[in-house]
């Protein structure tokens, strides 16, 4: 197994298109990644040759589809290092996964006086579900602070970790700052304090090799679309012991053992948490994605992305009036920045004209913007298919920004 960004890049049809007359440079990978040919083809083939519903059919195509569908669960368990496939719940994405945990675990076990600890650098998806469940249960939401570099303050975290803390929810990798958090340490401390740990892996899973048991988390959430997979499918890992104690969240077909109007009995996990006809084709497409991710050397890919990020930061620092937001010692995937003379929106608009897709805004992390006193940032984020040429195009666009606005 080897890794070569330029070769892999050929596998992504979108990347060879032109945009606004320029070569397309895609640097919004933290929002979503493009899809390799094998994933697109897996979806086409499934719909054109093998489509059927799962879990109920007594006929050939449905038996095949059910088998294929459940095989993806097996692959996903392997991908995340879960102990067994039953620890994997298919969800729409990270957001749904976190809501599921908040509603089902939080809604059941949180009581008045309890505390939910989230970090100051969370995505809204790892804040709002906890706010909602705190409101319902009377629990309190507290925030692990971060330093001016954008690193979690671990001593403060240890102080906050009193016996009232029932849930610690942190991101593995910040989409707004690129900070890599010491999730292993955080999960170990949480467990020692008797709290359940929830790791938001939306950004982690695309960039790092994940092993939930090694990490020691109780729940882990990620989105297929951010790791070269289809729209509309994501994974929730939950330790089986916890999943078994959790009530269902959504009710409907497929999540029950028996339904009577007087009383309904629920199926065992993961079925209990997958009400209704699932996103079958996206699951099949995710299977092809996991095969794709297993087809190259992920350690080398990580190194490639790290070099790219370092190279980018080095060159950005040389751009007049540019300030990087988030200077943690351990970073991956993304770099946020502001410029003296141009608002992030204007940066992104000028970059777009050069064919460079950047994100500008709050990145669904308004508290991070508030913490750093900026209304928004521009962000470049990377994937396995990005190269130094992309970085060069970015830097050229930023020089143009300076020419226009100063």
């Amino acid at each position, binding site marked *: 197994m080897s890794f070569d960004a330029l070769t892999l890049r050929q596998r992504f049809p979108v990347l060879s298109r032109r945009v606004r007359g320029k070569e397309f440079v895609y640097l919004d990978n933290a929002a979503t990644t493009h899809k390799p040919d094998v994933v697109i083809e897996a979806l086409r083939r499934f719909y054109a040759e093998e489509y059927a519903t799962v*879990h*109920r059919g*007594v006929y050939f195509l449905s*038996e095949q589809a059910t088998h294929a569908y459940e095989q993806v669960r097996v692959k996903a368990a392997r991908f995340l290092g879960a102990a067994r496939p039953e620890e994997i719940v298919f969800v729409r994405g990270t957001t749904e996964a976190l809501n599921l945990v908040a509603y089902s675990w939080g809604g059941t076990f949180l009581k008045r006086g309890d505390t939910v600890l989230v970090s100051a650098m969370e995505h809204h998806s790892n804040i709002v579900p906890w706010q909602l469940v705190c409101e319902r249960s009377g629990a309190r939401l507290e925030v692990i602070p971060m330093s001016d570099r954008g690193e979690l303050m671990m001593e403060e975290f240890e102080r906050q970790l009193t016996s009232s803390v029932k849930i610690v929810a942190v991101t593995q990798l910040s989409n707004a700052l690129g900070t890599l958090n010491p999730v292993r340490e955080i999960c170990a401390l949480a467990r020692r304090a008797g709290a359940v740990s929830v790791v938001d892996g939306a950004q982690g899973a695309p960039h790092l090799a994940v092993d939930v048991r090694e990490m020691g988390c109780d729940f882990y959430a990620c989105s297929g679309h951010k790791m070269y997979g289809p729209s509309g499918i994501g994974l929730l890992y939950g330790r089986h012991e916890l999943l078994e104690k959790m009530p269902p969240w959504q009710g409907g077909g497929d999540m029950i053992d028996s339904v009577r109007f007087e009383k309904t009995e629920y199926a065992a996990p993961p*079925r209990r948490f997958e009400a209704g006809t699932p996103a079958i084709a996206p699951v099949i497409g995710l299977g092809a994605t996991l095969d794709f991710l297993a087809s190259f050397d992920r350690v080398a890919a990580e190194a490639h992305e790290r070099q790219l990020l370092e190279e980018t930061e080095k060159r950005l620092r040389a751009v007049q009036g540019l300030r990087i937001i988030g200077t943690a010692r351990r970073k991956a995937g993304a770099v946020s920045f502001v410029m003296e003379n141009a608002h992030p929106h204007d940066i992104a608009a000028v970059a777009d004209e050069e064919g460079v897709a950047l994100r500008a805004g709050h990145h669904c992390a308004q508290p991070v913007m508030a913490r750093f006193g900026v209304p928004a940032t521009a962000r470049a984020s990377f994937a396995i298919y990005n190269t130094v040429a992309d970085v060069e195009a970015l830097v050229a666009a930023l020089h143009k920004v300076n020419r226009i606005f100063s």
Partner: protein
Amino acid sequence: MGASDDLYQQVILDHNRRPRNFRPMATPTHVCPGRNPLCGDHVNIYLEVRGERIEDVSFEGSGCAISKASSSMMTEAVKGKTVAEARQLFSEFRAMLMGELDTGRVPHGLGKLTIFKGVREYSSRIKCAGLAWHALVGALDSQKQISTE
């Protein structure tokens, strides 16, 4: 071979039509209801175990031909056996259904139960063939009920 040859061999059709030991038991030592929630099949397994030996076994319930024939043939197979022997048969039967036991090459005690070998080609029916066996083990383990899922 098509499903009707493969799944519905004469022996199976016969046990479906005239299931053996198809009756409730007044004073069983062990009992366990099993059900397959996806198709509504259910079966009650009754056991009379004395010492180590299964002196009597019977069943009741409703299900498809595969489930009924499998229940019927299971009762014939385990009657008079020891609990340990019955458990051994269960694991061999289960392994056969899961395609983990090649009955043609590896020695086993399944006897005419190998007639259910063809079921493994029809994954949705594996649960039908296994239901009674899971309920048997559920009864031996004193479980309140089992559900194949």
